[in-house]
Each structure stands twice: as C-alpha cells, then as structure tokens.
C-alpha cells in the first residue's frame, strides 16, 4: 500500500527504554528539532527512582514525554499517540498511558525471553507476537540487528555499536514526522568531535533509521505537524531548574550583588546547584554545606555581608531550615529560600512531584513568622518568579520563599527569553551614613517598612542584630510587652505592604464575571489552561486565574473571587490553598485534589468543570 502524509495539529510521543538506552537524549534531540522547527511544545521526563534499578526491570525504565504541535501546548500531555518501547519493561510500564489505537514502536530485540521475564510477563506471553496489542498500531523493528548491520564495517566494539541504537529510533521518527536532521547532526558532530569513529557510527545509524522508514513499508504513513502560532520573537527551550539558576544570576547581575548560593544536595533541587556551579565567571559562589542548616546559616552570613544570598532544598531539607528562616526574618536580611517540592510527607516520593509544602512555607515556623511566598507556574516562569523573589527580598529586606516543584524543575518548554536590559531593575541601597543624627538606627524603616542594610566595612554604622525581640528602630534587645506586640505587627505589616508593590491578580482566560472561576497556583497552570481552553470551546462559562503571589495574596483577589458563582481550586495536595482562600475570603470554594506524585491532566480538570456546570 502506498504511504500517505497526514497533517496533525499536535502529537504526544513517549520515549521509553532502559536507563542505559539513552531515551533522555533521544527525547531532547527530537524536542530541540521540533522547537527549532517552530512547534510549540512541553516535555516531562520520568526517571526511575533515584538509584539505577537492574536492567530490563520496570523500575529500571527511563521515560521522556514530548508534546508538540502547531497549536498552543500547555502540558506534556495526557495519553500519548506514539510509544517508543525499547524493551518489554518499557512497554509494560507505559501501556496504560497510550491512546486507544495509538502507535507502538517496539524494539523486538528487547522482547526476548530474558526481557519478558524481567518485565514479569507471564511465562510464554509476548505482547509483540501474541496479538495482545491488537487495537494498537504496532511497528516492530529489531533495532539492535539493524544498528549492527548498519555498522558492519565499523571498527567499534559491539558495546559501543549497540550504544548507537537510540540513533536508529531517532532517525526513524525524524522520517516519520518529516523532520530535518541537521540539528542532531550538528549536535553529534560537536559532541564527538574528538571521537571520529563514534561520530561516524552515530551518523550512519541515524541515517539508517531514516532510510528504514523510507524504504520499508513498516510505517504506512508519515505525519506533518506545522509550526505553531506563537508570539514572534527569539526562543530557546528551557527546563525549570535551569531557568531558576539563570534567574538568580540575572538578579545578581541586575542588582549588582554577587550571588552566594549555599545548599545541600537533595532531589529534585540539586540541579540548580549543578547549573550555578558552571557559572563562576559570573561571580557566582556556590557552597555545598554539610547540611541544610549550615547551608541557610551560611547564606544568612553572606546576606549580612551584602551579597544576594540564596539557599535551596526540597521539603525535608526545608523543614530543617525552619529555625534559621525565623532568624532571617528577625534580622530582616534579604534571603531567597527555594523549595523544589516533591512527594511527601517525610522522605515520601523523592523523584515525584507534589504541591504539598505550601502550608510549610506559610506556617512552618515558631512564633508569628510571616515570610513572602512566590510560586512559579511553568518551567520558563521559574526564571521570572525567582527573579521577582530576589527583587522583593532585596527591596523589602526580608527572606522570601520561592516554590517550584519536580514537574517544573525537570519539565521544559520554549521560552521567549528576555533581553538583559528589559528586566525589571533591582535596586539594593546600602546605608552609608548615620540615619538619626549621631546614631545609626538599624531598624529605622523606609516607606516599604524595610530597614536599612549597613554592610560590615562601613565606618560609623557598626551595629549588632540578633534573634531576640528587638526594640523598634534601635534594634536593641527589648523585653518590653508593648514593643513586642508592636514589632510583631510591624513585621506582618511589612510583608502585607508588599502587595502595594506587586501587580494585581489577572485573569489568565475567561470573563471577569461568571459561573465558575478556577484558581490555581504553581505547576497546575498548564493543565488548567488547557482544560479551560477546551471547556470554553465546548461553551462552558469558566475563567482561570493562576496565583503567583501566595503571600501576601494580591489585593484584588477577593473582588475577583466574588465575581463568580463557584470557585474551583485544583491542587496537587489535599487542599492547602483551598483552606487559605476559605479562611481569608469566607467563600465555599471547592477543591479538586490529586496527590499521586504526578501532574494533573487537562482532561481530569475538564471532567470536573463539566460535572460542576451540569448541576
């Protein structure tokens, strides 16, 4: 039969194989190629749990999901159209996420007896032979055989040869989706510039995969996914942790403060450290401390010294920082605390995503200890959100918590990156002289209620600060009852005042008034946006607002809420923002909660919208 060419507006591909099969690389290559081609896209890797599990087993499967299209893409997608399964375990682990009638590209070599056993298929069963996959479009290729054939003349050892397998698959997919291979060719050429033979091998196999599609009749059709309508501009693809790292450096450069990053490794925050450690030439100092407490205390010291001080961790590590956060807020020194949230409680699900640390961020300290909290909405938004966190920390002399999560940290999307000159200015003003005649008052406040920042080394401004309650203005220890209440209220007022200097809440889509408003925060942005678009397309009356400023909440949030009959709050927790909204605004908002270590799919939210509007 002859190959036809179909035009699709979006496609979801899941690359799945053994940790050793190089699926992350394959996925990234296809992603960048799609990006350069002008598709909108969203990706999400799912790694196996921390340690490499034995080859061929289900825990050993490493996956990479890519959603690309000629339409706007908001999430890595729910069920996939194409599943690349390098072995039996990869198939087993991902079948339930494959659309009915979806395509499976299976590496038959990965379905031998051993692999089937490791993936614990029942003895004798073999999905790619026993017809149990009828109803799907199954493309079986013996990738290993093909790869070896392609490299028959190669001087490489069999191990290296087999390592090129993923290129065959990539080539085949490039053919299938009518893609230009130049980006990957360029990439390989750079990567293996010093290993000519390996380079040749990879290019050969890549080409072989492409030709395979051309020549054989395995695949009955090819697909075209045209470029998406995206705001004009220059784009790059970026992951959340990468964006956060760059955002910190940007804040450092724009504020003129050197960046001091003190942290202790923890999944999924560690990559920010890895990223920053590469940029010492930007004046960045990274400090891997002995533990989370030392990490935050060191940053407090650096902040006292006049640097842009930042510490990061995930839930359990943030718990350890709680006491020192209290100190930072008493000292009223700028400090950014990053929490890349993961599944909890306790050690929980370290490699999975969740939003269950909002309460901890708002309330997880002793005493009346208000700290501003900012949440990021998408991988690229990690840049803007952390940049804003730095601005508020410096301009209001306060610790600020920045909330990301595993989904944002490892997910990626195209980013129309800004020019340095277009970034909001961040002005750090250091005290240089006495502010009360002959005295220097370390706790005298400006219009933002911020106290002055006098750096050691400044003659005449010598002063002492500490964690005991301090007297208004002088900062001296004070046990006076009235002063204590005054200062408690003052610290609260300062945080509240931030709302006067941050943008009001905007609706992301939908009408100003109406039946249903969906309020989200953090990484639920994409899924909600997608669901709302679809719902509105179906004629439902629904609007969407995504909150970034978790504390203080935008001043106009109440008005917005009161304009709707119903308010729905989807969260990857049991309803934390929900209870805050109910408390603050006294409205019976409804929660949609998912605590499964993975993001919402748009359809899950859409279903809820339909259910609510039926009533």
């Amino acid at each position, binding site marked *: 039969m002859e190959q036809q060419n179909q035009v699709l507006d979006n496609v979801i591909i899941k690359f799945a194989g053994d940790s050793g099969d190089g699926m992350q690389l394959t996925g990234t290559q296809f992603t960048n190629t799609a*990006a*350069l081609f*002008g598709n909108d896209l969203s990706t999400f890797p799912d790694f196996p749990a921390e340690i490499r599990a034995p080859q061929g087993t289900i825990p050993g499967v490493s996956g990479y999901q890519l959603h690309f299209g000629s339409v706007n893409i908001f999430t890595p997608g729910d069920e996939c159209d194409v599943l690349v399964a390098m072995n039996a375990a990869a198939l087993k682990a991902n079948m339930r996420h494959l659309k009915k009638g979806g395509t499976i590209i299976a590496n038959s070599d990965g379905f031998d007896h051993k692999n089937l056993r490791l993936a614990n298929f029942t003895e004798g069963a073999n999905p790619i032979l026993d017809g149990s996959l009828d109803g799907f479009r199954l493309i079986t290729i013996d990738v290993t055989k093909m790869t070896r054939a392609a490299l028959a003349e190669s001087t490489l050892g069999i191990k290296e040869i087999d390592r090129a397998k993923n290129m065959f698959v990539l080539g085949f997919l490039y053919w299938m989706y009518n893609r230009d291979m130049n*980006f990957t060719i360029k990439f390989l050429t750079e990567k293996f510039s010093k290993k000519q033979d390996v380079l040749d091998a990879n290019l050969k196999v890549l080409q072989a995969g492409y030709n395979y599609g051309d020549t054989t009749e395995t695949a009955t059709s090819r697909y075209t996914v045209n*470029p998406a309508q*995206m*705001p*004009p*501009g*220059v*784009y*790059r693809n970026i992951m959340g942790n990468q964006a956060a790292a*760059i955002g910190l*450096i*940007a804040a450092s*450069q*724009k504020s003129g403060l*050197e960046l*001091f990053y003190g942290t202790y490794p923890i999944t999924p925050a560690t990559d920010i450290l890895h990223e920053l450690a590469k*940029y*010492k*030439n930007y*004046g*960045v*100092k990274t*400090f891997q*401390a*002995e*533990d989370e*407490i*030392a990490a935050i*205390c*060191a*940053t*407090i*010291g*650096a902040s*006292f*010294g*006049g*640097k842009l001080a930042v510490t990061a961790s995930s839930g359990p590590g943030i718990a350890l920082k709680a006491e*020192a956060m209290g*100190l930072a807020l008493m000292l009223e020194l700028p400090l950014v605390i990053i929490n890349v949230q993961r599944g909890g409680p306790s050690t929980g699900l370290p490699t999975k995503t969740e939003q269950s640390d909002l309460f901890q961020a708002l309330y997880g300290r002793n005493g009346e200890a208000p700290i501003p909290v900012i949440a990021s909405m998408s991988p690229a938004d990690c840049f803007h959100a952390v940049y804003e966190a730095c601005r508020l920390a410096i301009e209001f002399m306060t610790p600020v918590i920045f909330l990301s999560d595993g989904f944002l940290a490892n997910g990626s999307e195209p980013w129309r*990156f*800004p*020019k*340095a000159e277009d970034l909001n200015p961040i002005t750090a003003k250091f005290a240089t002289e006495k502010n009360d005649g002959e005295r220097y008052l370390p706790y005298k406040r400006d219009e933002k209620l911020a106290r002055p920042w006098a750096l*050691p*080394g400044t*003659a*005449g*401004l*010598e*002063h*002492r*600060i*500490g*964690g*005991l309650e301090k007297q208004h203005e002088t900062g001296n*220890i004070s046990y006076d009852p009235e002063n204590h209440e005054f200062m408690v209220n003052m610290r609260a007022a300062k945080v509240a005042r931030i709302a006067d200097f941050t943008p009001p809440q905007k609706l992301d889509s939908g009408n100003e008034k109406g039946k249903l408003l969906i309020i989200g925060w953090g990484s639920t942005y994409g899924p909600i946006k997608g669901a709302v678009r679809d719902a509105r397309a179906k004629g439902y009356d629904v609007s969407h607002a995504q909150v970034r400023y978790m504390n203080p909440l935008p001043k106009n949030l109440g008005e917005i809420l009161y304009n709707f009959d119903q308010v729905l709050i989807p969260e990857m927790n049991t309803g934390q923002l929900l209870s805050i909204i109910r408390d603050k605004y006294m409205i019976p908002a409804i929660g949609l909660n998912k605590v499964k270590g993975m993001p919402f799919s748009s359809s899950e939210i859409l279903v809820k919208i339909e259910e609510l509007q039926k009533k």
Partner: protein
Amino acid sequence: METTTQNPEAPKFTSKDLVTDQEVRWCPGCGDYSILKQVQTVVPELGIPRENIVFISGIGCSSRFPYYMETYGMHSIHGRATAVASGLKAARPDLSVWIVTGDGDSMSIGGNHFIHLLRRNFNVNILLFNNEIYGLTKGQYSPTSEEGKVTKSTPMGSIDHPFNPFALAMGAEGSFIARSMDRDPVHLKEMLRRTNAHQGTSFLEIYQNCNVFNDGAFEIFTEKSSKKEEAIFVENGKPLIYGQDGTKGIKLDGFHPKIVDLTIDGNSANDLWIHDESDRVKAGILSRFFDRHEKGIDHLPRPFGVFYKEDRKCYEEAMNDQVVEAIAKKGAGDLNRLLQGREIWEIH
C-alpha cells in the same frame, strides 16, 4: 590572598571605642567579664579598622558577647555561629570574623558545623568560652562536663563521657589550637593575638568560670595556690617546665609523658620534651593531659598555650581563586549570552 591585613594606616581606636551603649548583663563575678575586657584591650592593637571586624555568636550566656562590642556583630541561633561565620567569610574575605561560642553551643548542638569549619579552614577565629556547663538554661551538664557531674538534669551524676575539645578539633583537621583562661589576662591577651595572627581557622578554648552554676571548675588552674603545680604553659621551642620556680619538667618516654623532678641532679632541662607547635603527634599527646582520660599515669598539669599550628590554604581564598580562574578562562559572564543559551530559533 591575604585577608584582614594589619593596616598601620587604619584609624586608631581604643578599648573605650569598643564599649557599646548596652548594659553588660552577666551575673556578677562571671568569667565572661574578664574575657570581654581582654578582647577589648587586644583588638585595638591589631591594626584592623573597627568597621572591618565582625563578632558572630550563637546562643548562650557567652553568646551575648557581640552586644557588648562596638563592632559589627550578630547574635545568631544556637549552635550555628560557625555556619553563619563561614558564609560571611566566604562572601567577604576582607573582614576579620570572630566567633564567640559556648561549650554547649559549639560542641553539643553546634558540633557538626564546628568540625566542618575546622576542616574547611576558613580564616576566622573561634573563641570557645568553656565553662563546662549550660549557663543560660540554668545549669545542665554539657559535652565538656566530667563524668559523674551532678547537675539539674543529672541528679545522679552525668554518665556521658565528655569530649576532649582538642582531640576533637585535631581529629577534625583543625589548623590552630590553643587554650587560655579567664583569670590570666596576660596569657589570654597573648593567645588572642596569636589567634588573630593565624591564617586559617583559629580555635582558642578559654576556661571560663560560671560562678553561679559551675563555680570553681577551673580553680586549681587559676588560683595562685595551685596554679603553678596544676597548669603548664607551653611555648614553641621551649622545654615543658612548670611547678614552683620551674622545678618540674615533662619528658617523653616513648609516647608517654613522664614528670621529671629538676631538683634532683642528673635531671636536666635538656632532656625534656621541647614543645613543637608543628608536631601533630606531640600535640595529640599534649591534648590528652587529662587525668580523667589517662588512668594510672603521672598526674599531669593541664597545658595552656598554642598546642598545634599548621599552615593550610584558607577556604575563602580557594573559593575566590576559582572565580578568578573562571573569569580568566571564560571571560566575565555576559548576561545576554546566558539568557540565550546554546540553541535558539526565531518566530516571525
């Protein structure tokens, strides 16, 4: 990179200039008063501009210290002064950073930061006010309290084998280790000078009397009557001599310290152990001059002075070097290049 340079040009100031407007609030008779006085006497001599000096403390009676020093200062949280100081020094190598801590603050809750600071060797000074008790919380035993100590929390006596602060510090790769006492102003001042002079983490343990909850803990070392017999002051290159009119000495037979009576002829100072600050093994033996630790041997006097000194690169220097090297290699970072990354595409 030389930090906190002795700058003769520095504006002169006196001890009085180091007194703050805060009323000193230690119990009458507390050893902390004397230490404060010696520090305020020595600091002006160091040639460091006052504004470049920072005192960082944790929590405890001793940790109130910064409030009484007219320099920059931070009264942080319990056990963390060492960590705060590390960050400050990493960020600001130009500052002279002093840590004031107690035996509980540094060795109980703060033990981890203490040992990591020592191995990293930031160029900071640790003043440990060791009163072998938790003063601020009104008298519980600390990690330096002797076994069997009866306190509020140990009515039947403590069962904890205490730390030997020097053994711990040496084990943690400390590069400068010295001991003095609140009641010997002259020696204390000398040790403060040496502490400041050492490039690297200087650890000075100061025996400090808590006259309310652990009075007399160090009496035998500080009181005229017993001091000569119970305390020995070691100096680099000099033999270990002590006792009334220096009539006693210490020599090593094998690895074991033995007391020598110099009045008996045949015994001469020449056979004695000559103190060598650079000898880690001997410093180790010296640090074990605790009867409670070494049973069945001569009753040895408690050593004071600089036990050990080693020159090792300071952490903040190494950190700076990498920044400098990175800039040399890649050029100062350009934000726009960073923002754009490796692969970009344009949409029209």
